[in-house]
């Protein structure tokens, strides 16, 4: 939209757009380890029901996704794939890092094959602590992300350089 790129959006319009973005998010689940099951419980189980937050799980591809949940241990062998998948997502994109392993390496802090935190590979918006975090904790993280989106200045966000895959 030309209005957004011009950098001048009236406040009420920003609010309207942000609200509509906030409650229509596709989440791409990058289930890696134990946390993937808790994420599955949050996304696929009727008990936690993530859709009431306006979040739609299980898109067909990262191309459709608005935010990514990295849940579980990222290893050095996996890190390039995480990066590539993140690059495939369209802007604006957000990342939730779920669980101690994705946050900082967790119990594998001294392992020879584990990346000590997914934020070494991709930028992270919300960290959800826990080993693994309960599904409720992930929902809390999603709510925090939604608040962040709500307060975002879209024009500011769009000013960034385009993401180019080499």
């Amino acid at each position, binding site marked *: *939209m*030309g209005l957004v*790129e011009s950098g001048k959006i009236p406040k009420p319009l920003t609010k309207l757009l942000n609200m509509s973005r906030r409650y229509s998010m596709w989440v791409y689940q*990058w*289930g*890696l*380890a*134990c946390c*993937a*099951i*808790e994420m*599955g*419980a949050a996304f*696929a*189980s*009727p*008990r936690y029901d993530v859709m009431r937050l306006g979040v739609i799980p*299980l898109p067909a591809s990262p*191309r459709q996704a608005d935010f990514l949940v990295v849940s*579980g*241990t990222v*290893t050095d*062998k*996996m890190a390039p*794939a995480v990066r*590539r*998948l993140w*690059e*495939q997502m*369209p*802007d604006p994109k957000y990342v939730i890092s779920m669980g101690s392993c994705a946050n900082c390496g967790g*119990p*594998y802090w*001294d*392992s*020879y*094959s*584990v990346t000590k935190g997914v934020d070494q590979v991709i930028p992270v918006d919300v960290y959800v602590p826990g*080993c*693994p975090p*309960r599904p409720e904790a992930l929902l809390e993280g999603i709510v925090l992300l939604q608040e962040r989106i709500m307060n975002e200045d879209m024009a500011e966000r769009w000013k960034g*350089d*385009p*993401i*180019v*895959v080499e």
Partner: protein
Amino acid sequence: MATTESDQMAYIAAQAADARVNVEVETDEGMTLNLGPQHPATHGTLRIVAKLDGEKVLAAEPIMGYMHRGYEKLTEVRTYPQVTTLVNRIDWLGSFANEVPFILAAEQLMEVEAPPRAQWIRTVLFELSRIANISLFLGDMAVQVGATTPVFYAFRDREFVLNQIERVTGGRFHPNFDRIGGLKDDLPKGWIEETGAVLGKMRDFCDEMEELVLGNEIFQARTRGIGVIPPDVALSYGLSGANLRASGIDWDIRRDANVGLVYDEVDWKVWTHPDGDSFSRFWVRLQETREAINILEQLLGGIPSGPIMAKVPRIIKVPAGEAYVATENPLGEMGFYVVSQGDLTPFRVKIRSASFSNMSITPWLLKGVFVPDIISILASLYFILGDIDR
């Protein structure tokens, strides 16, 4: 809607990247199809590279290591009580079952034995982990052959079991509850009755799964006669657990080589199936879940009273020696080979995980099947990536 240059560039680059990921090489022998490392049909991050001739798989090879976390090295720099925290996370669907063989191996070396009450509660939690683990398989297997509903039921009913585990141990997933010489705590008040009610629900869940999935024509067409493993091949690849029993071998560590758990006290049955195909693996697991409920119902009625902790020193030094203890985990035989040299940390721990051996048969098994069968065969072998890669 106007498209900016950056959008276009990003789109083109993304298309190129996608092409690289999906179809890597085309050779004279046929097409190479790459599944994974992130693929919705794998339990975690497994990658399968398959060479195809049309729909037929000429050769398929799993590529692992995307989840390799170096457990065996890390155990050498952790004290014995700290190791259970790590090994919890190997098979993350039935965590408590991972702790037990390690603790039993350490107990063997220290020559201590847990009091009877601790052994019973261990067995109870062990079987609860089995239900928590296999119930998800039952739902997931159906997803892999195209039915989405069962997995929602599985997630729904699994919560009841997880809640019971949480009430005892404080953790839904990784209890870290087992100690050398006993358990951390006793059962909370009223737990036994509540668990009895949960078992009733899980029995209904098994019936529901059977009704939904087992008799389904599509399910049968996708699994009957697919991925047949003959018994001698299964043995030489070291398959264990339900995969071995589905090939007609009547072998269960709980009955035949039981160490430290109280399966001798209850009346139960080992289920086998002669076919060795994907269907029989599903069937055996379904029956095993029922049998686990059966075992639990008997165990809950007879937990002896007494202490839950034997006398062990506060700082645990394990005498020198070697011990190998294996238990019948939800995924198959899980064993710990612990070498101690009298230190606070183990000298070497070899983890024999079930899925690693179960998966090592896939290059043999996937040869000559059709592409859609890759998914159903892998699903029926039932692996967990943490258990393969460790």
